[in-house]
């Protein structure tokens, strides 16, 4: 089954390809206008995850790479609802996550930031939305880290999210931020998003999922492009 998505990337909230304040876009942004395919030919169906088997600890980044103890840092629980633009929940869709540790260090081999790695924290995980579009995972609050875009450049604390949603037009990679971060106004990646979209990237503190004596809760709802109310059955 193929579904034609009528919506496009919403330029009121989506960042452009080229934004010179974020220097890496200068040599990597397509410069020619995008071509619009003939609609009748589009088969946009995408991978589905109905029978996808998560590992038992995939959704718990505080436990999924323990070697000899608990990871260091502030435990948090992050939850939210994934819907399409029409408010329909997107059940059984895969969410992939990765992030820096509490010291602001990524496990990735090319991260040269002089901050400690945590032997008990890899910083990656996965979860699925349930039948009503909800997801939840546990992690350690990531630290801010420096990068080379401009002098004294620091990224705000963030968690990377990758989502599918049922067709290739709904594919999304984004970053979840934390409320009130003073680095927002200095971060060209965050600020590449038009003002109307920025607050959509910031999670909210949520006492209702905060677990007593264990972890603070944050809520981050995600809206994927498209109008399909239910994802596909295949794959």
């Amino acid at each position: 089954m193929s579904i034609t998505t009528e919506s496009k990337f919403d330029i009121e909230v989506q960042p452009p390809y080229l934004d010179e304040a974020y220097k890496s876009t200068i040599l990597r942004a397509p410069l020619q206008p995008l071509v619009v395919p003939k609609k009748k030919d589009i088969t946009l169906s995408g991978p589905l995850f109905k029978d996808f088997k998560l590992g038992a600890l995939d959704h718990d980044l505080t436990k999924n790479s323990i070697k000899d103890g608990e990871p260091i840092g502030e435990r948090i629980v992050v939850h939210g609802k994934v819907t399409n633009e029409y408010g329909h929940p997107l059940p059984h869709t895969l969410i992939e996550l990765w992030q820096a540790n509490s010291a602001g260090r990524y496990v990735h081999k090319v991260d040269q930031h002089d901050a400690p790695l945590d032997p008990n924290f890899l910083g990656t995980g996965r979860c699925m939305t349930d039948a009503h579009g909800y997801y939840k995972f546990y992690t350690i609050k990531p630290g801010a880290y420096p990068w080379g875009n401009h002098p004294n450049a620091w990224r705000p604390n963030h968690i990377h999210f990758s989502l599918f949603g049922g067709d290739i037009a709904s594919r999304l990679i984004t970053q979840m931020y934390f409320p009130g971060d003073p680095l927002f106004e200095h971060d060209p990646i965050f600020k590449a998003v038009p003002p109307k979209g920025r607050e959509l990237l910031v999670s909210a503190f949520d006492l209702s999922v905060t677990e007593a004596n264990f972890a603070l809760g944050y809520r981050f709802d995600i809206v994927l492009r498209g109008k399909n109310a239910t994802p596909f059955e295949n794959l």
Partner: protein
Amino acid sequence: MKTSAVKKQTPSQTIGPYFAYGLTPQQYGYDFDSWVDHDMVKGLNNVETITITGTVYDGNAQPVDDAMIELWQDDGVHKLFGRYGSGTDEGNTFTFKTIKPKSVNGQAPFIHVILFMRGQLLHSYTRIYFADEQQLNETDANLNAVDTDRKHTLVAEKKGDSYVFNIYMQGRNETVFFEI
């Protein structure tokens, strides 16, 4: 019936330079299972497989060593998905093992490409068509919607046993990217 959107899309943000241990962990040697990789034909028997290789080039014609390429194909028979990072192979090439999709409704067969990299705030979409489908390529409505002198950027060349599909972000041979 036309309904209107009630919610704003969540904005896209760059994949950044450090996706490997999260999205392509086994390819890069991290201790976390990958759920998908470059081999799109796992579990399929009696199919004729093809290899697609290529390199992503930036505006200075330098190979991009931190791109993530996803392929998706759906010809009504096989729905196949693959993913590969450009940071592990010599020359920063990517490689996929798949099958050539069938023609659907008289269209030229093609594979969707979803491209992510540091320096892209929003991912790009392109398509792989096949040089040895000359007849269908000539009559394909989508290929014919592209300027004649840019069409070749969408067509993978056959070299030996492989198809080669290089992606140029900018420059004289800038790949055609689609608004999906």
